[in-house]
C-alpha cells in the first residue's frame, strides 16, 4: 500500500442505516484498527441499489469495487479476502459501475448520489456541482427560464406541469417579495427518491432552488420536509449551513448582487400537506387545508406572494439543465415526457431501489429486468403506480410505456415514479378498502365527497368483502367514486377512486369471494 489512505464508502442513507450500515462502518473501523490498517471511511449516499444495502465500496485504481449486503459479521472475512484492494469475496459484485442494474441507468438527476460525500462542498464541486448556478448567475432571468422551458422538464411531484411555464408566471408577477418553496413532503407510499437525493446530494437541491430563485426574482425560500424524515432533515440543515459558510447562499451569492435565503420547515404527519396549497398553509403555521385555485400559488402563494412550488426532483434536475443546456436534457425521453425519471421499485420486489431512466421505458422492463420479479418468488399480480392515488395495474398492462399521457389514458399516474409490487397473495378488495381508509384518515375535510364519501366507500367495501348484497353495493361504490371524482377540490378526493375502480375493474373476482348462499342470508338479516 503506497502512501495514500485507502477510502472505504459506507452509506449514511436512511435505508442503508435501516439495515445496519452504522454497525458495518463501526465494524470496519474496529477491524482496521485491530489489523493496523489505516483507512478513511466516507459516509456517502446510497447508489440506489437498496437490495444490496449495506453496500460497501472500496476505492481501487480500477474504480470502486462493491460488496453487499454486508453485515458486521462479514467484516473480518472481507479483510481476510483483501477487500481493501478489491479482493474476491462471496459478497463481491466487482466494479460498482459495471453492475448491470446501475450501468444501464441514465443518471442525470442522481448523477452524484452515492458517489460523493454529501456534506463536502469540495466533493460536490469536483463532480460538476454549482456549474449550473455559475452559468445562471451570468444569465438574465428570462434566459434561465427559457433554458428550463426548452428542456421540457415537467413537475416530478405528480401533476407533471411544465416547470418553465410555472417559473415564467412567477418571474412576470410584480411583487415586493417572492418565494421558492420546495415540496419535500414525499407522502406517497413506494417513493423515496426525494429522501435519497436529499441525503445523498443535498447541495443539488440547494443549487436547484437558488437557480429557481434567481430566475424568478425570489429572495427567500423554504424546503418543506416531512417529519417522517428526521435524518434527511438533519443532513439538509447541515448542508444549508455549509452553503452559507461558503457563500453559495445568503446575500451576495458568490460575489454577485444576488441574494437567496433558504430555510427548512418540517411538516407534522399530514399527507394532504403534500398538496401544494395545503403545504403553503402549513408553512404559514396553519392547518393544512387545501386552498381553492385560482389564485394560483405562482401569483398568490406563500404569505400571499408569488411563489414557485416545485418537487425535490424537479428542482434537483435544474442544475444539470443549466450546466449542460436544455437540449441535452430534452434529448432523453419520448413524446411530451422529456428527460429522465428516477423510478422507485418498492414493495414485494427482489431488487428494490432507484432506477433512473428516460421516459418511455415499460413497466415490464422495470419490474423484471431491473426488479427481478418478486422477493417472495411468487408471480406479480398487481402493481400500484404513482402512489396511493394511483391505479392498480394487472400484468396485461405491463407493456405500457412510462409516459405521462400514456398513463393518464389508463387512469394511472406516472406521479412521483413509485411502483409498488404485490404478489398473488394480495387481496385487491382489501387494497381498495385501504384506499378509502387512507382518504378518511388524510382528507383535509373541506369537501363533503372526500370527507364523507370516503367513509361511505369504506363501509360499502366492508359489506362487499363480507359478501352482503354485492351487486348493489358495487353499484353504490361506483356511484360514490363518480361523486368523489366530480365533487372534490383536489386530487385526494378526486383520485382516491382510481385505485378503487382499477381494483374492481382488473380484479373483479376478489370482490366476490364470499359464496352467493352466504350473501342471501346477509340480505335477509339486513
Amino acid at each position, binding site marked *: 500500500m503506497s502512501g495514500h489512505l485507502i477510502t472505504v464508502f459506507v452509506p449514511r442513507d*436512511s*435505508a442503508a*442505516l*435501516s*439495515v445496519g450500515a*452504522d454497525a458495518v462502518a463501526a465494524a470496519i473501523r474496529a477491524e482496521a484498527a485491530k489489523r493496523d490498517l489505516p483507512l478513511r471511511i466516507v459516509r456517502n449516499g446510497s447508489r440506489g441499489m*437498496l437490495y444490496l*444495502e449495506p453496500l460497501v465500496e472500496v476505492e481501487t485504481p480500477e474504480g470502486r469495487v462493491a460488496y453487499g449486503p454486508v453485515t458486521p459479521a462479514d467484516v473480518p472475512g472481507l479483510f481476510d479476502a483483501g477487500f481493501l484492494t478489491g479482493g474476491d469475496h462471496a459478497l463481491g459484485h466487482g466494479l460498482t459501475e459495471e453492475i448491470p442494474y446501475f450501468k444501464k441507468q441514465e443518471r442525470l438527476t442522481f448523477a452524484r448520489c452515492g458517489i460523493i460525500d454529501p456534506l463536502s462542498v469540495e466533493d460536490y464541486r469536483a463532480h460538476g456541482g454549482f456549474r449550473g448556478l455559475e452559468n445562471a448567475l451570468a444569465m438574465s432571468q428570462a434566459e434561465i427560464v427559457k433554458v428550463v422551458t426548452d428542456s421540457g422538464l415537467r413537475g416530478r411531484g405528480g401533476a407533471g406541469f411544465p416547470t418553465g411555464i410555472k417559473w415564467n408566471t412567477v418571474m412576470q408577477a410584480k411583487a415586493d417579495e417572492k418565494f421558492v418553496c420546495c415540496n419535500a413532503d*414525499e*407522502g*406517497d*407510499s*413506494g*417513493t*423515496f427518491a*426525494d429522501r435519497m437525493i436529499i441525503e445523498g446530494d443535498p447541495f443539488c437541491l440547494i443549487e436547484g432552488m437558488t437557480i429557481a430563485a434567481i430566475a424568478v426574482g425570489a429572495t*427567500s425560500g423554504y424546503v418543506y420536509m416531512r*417529519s*417522517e424524515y*428526521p*435524518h*434527511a*432533515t*438533519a443532513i439538509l*440543515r447541515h448542508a*444549508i449551513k455549509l452553503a*452559507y459558510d461558503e457563500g453559495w*447562499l*445568503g446575500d451576495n451569492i458568490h460575489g454577485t448582487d444576488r441574494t437567496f*435565503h*433558504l430555510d*427548512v*420547515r*418540517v*411538516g*407534522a*404527519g*399530514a*399527507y394532504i400537506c403534500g398538496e401544494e396549497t395545503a403545504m403553503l398553509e*402549513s*408553512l*404559514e*403555521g*396553519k*392547518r*393544512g387545508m387545501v386552498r381553492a385555485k385560482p389564485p394560483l400559488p405562482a401569483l398568490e402563494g406563500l*404569505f400571499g406572494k408569488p411563489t414557485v412550488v416545485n418537487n425535490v426532483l424537479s428542482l434537483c434536475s435544474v442544475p444539470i439543465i443549466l450546466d449542460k443546456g436544455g437540449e441535452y436534457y430534452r434529448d432523453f425521453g419520448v413524446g411530451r415526457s422529456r428527460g429522465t425519471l428516477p423510478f*422507485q421499485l*418498492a*414493495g414485494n*420486489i427482489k431488487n*428494490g431501489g432507484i432506477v433512473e431512466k428516460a421516459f418511455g421505458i415499460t413497466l415490464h422492463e422495470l419490474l423484471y429486468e431491473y426488479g427481478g420479479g418478486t*422477493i417472495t418468488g411468487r408471480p406479480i399480480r398487481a402493481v*400500484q403506480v404513482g402512489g*396511493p392515488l394511483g391505479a392498480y395495474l394487472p400484468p396485461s398492462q405491463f407493456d405500457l410505456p412510462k409516459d405521462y399521457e400514456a398513463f393518464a389514458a389508463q387512469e394511472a399516474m406516472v406521479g412521483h415514479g*413509485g411502483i*409498488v409490487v404485490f404478489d398473488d397473495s394480495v387481496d385487491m378488495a382489501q*387494497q381498495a378498502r385501504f384506499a378509502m381508509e*387512507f382518504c378518511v384518515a*388524510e382528507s383535509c375535510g373541506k369537501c363533503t365527497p372526500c370527507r364523507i364519501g370516503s367513509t361511505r366507500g369504506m363501509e360499502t367495501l366492508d359489506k362487499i368483502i363480507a359478501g352482503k348484497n354485492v351487486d348493489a353495493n358495487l353499484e353504490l361504490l361506483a356511484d360514490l367514486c363518480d361523486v368523489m371524482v366530480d365533487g372534490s377540490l383536489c386530487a385526494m378526493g378526486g383520485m382516491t377512486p382510481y385505485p378503487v375502480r382499477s381494483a374492481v375493474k382488473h380484479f373483479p373476482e376478489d370482490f366476490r369471494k364470499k359464496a352467493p348462499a352466504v350473501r342471501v342470508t346477509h340480505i335477509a338479516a339486513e
Partner: protein
Amino acid sequence: MTIVEDNRHLRGALLPILHALQEEFGYIDEQAIPLLATELNLSRADVHGVVSFYHEFRREKPGRHIIKVCRAEACQSMGANALVDHIKKRLQVDFHGTTADGAFTLEPVFCLGNCALSPAVMIDENLHGRVSPDRFDELAAETRANPTAHNQIPRALSHKDSHKGHAQ
C-alpha cells in the same frame, strides 16, 4: 418560555414552536395552548385547530420510546398488516397506546420512505427495514435494555441549532 423566544422571529412560527415543545416534553400539554395563543397573538381555537390537525402532535405524555410502524401499501405487500398485529399483541397496546411499563408508545404512519426494504418501523428516530416479527422483538428488547441509548443522528425536527441565516 424560551422555546417561544427562540422561534418567535420565524414567519409561520407556530409549527416550529410546536415541534420544539414536543421534542422537549414529548407532547403538547393542554396548558401550552392558551400560552401560545397569547404569545403569538392567535386565538385559542387557532392554536387548538393546528395541534389537532396534524397526526404528529401528541396530546398525552408518551412512553420513553416512540415506535412508528408503517401501514402503507409497499409495506402491506410485505406483510405489514401481520407485523402490526404481532406488535400490538406483543406490546399489549393498540395504536396511540403506551405499554404498561411506560417503555413504548405505538403509532401508525403512512410510509417512512423505506419502501424497497419493507416492512419498515421507526423507533425514536432510527429507521429499520425488513422488519419481521422476530426482528421486531429483537429491536424492542434492545431498546428496552438500553434505556439511555440515543439516536446516532441529531434531533432535527425543531428549529434549534439551525443555521444563522434563515429566511427571516
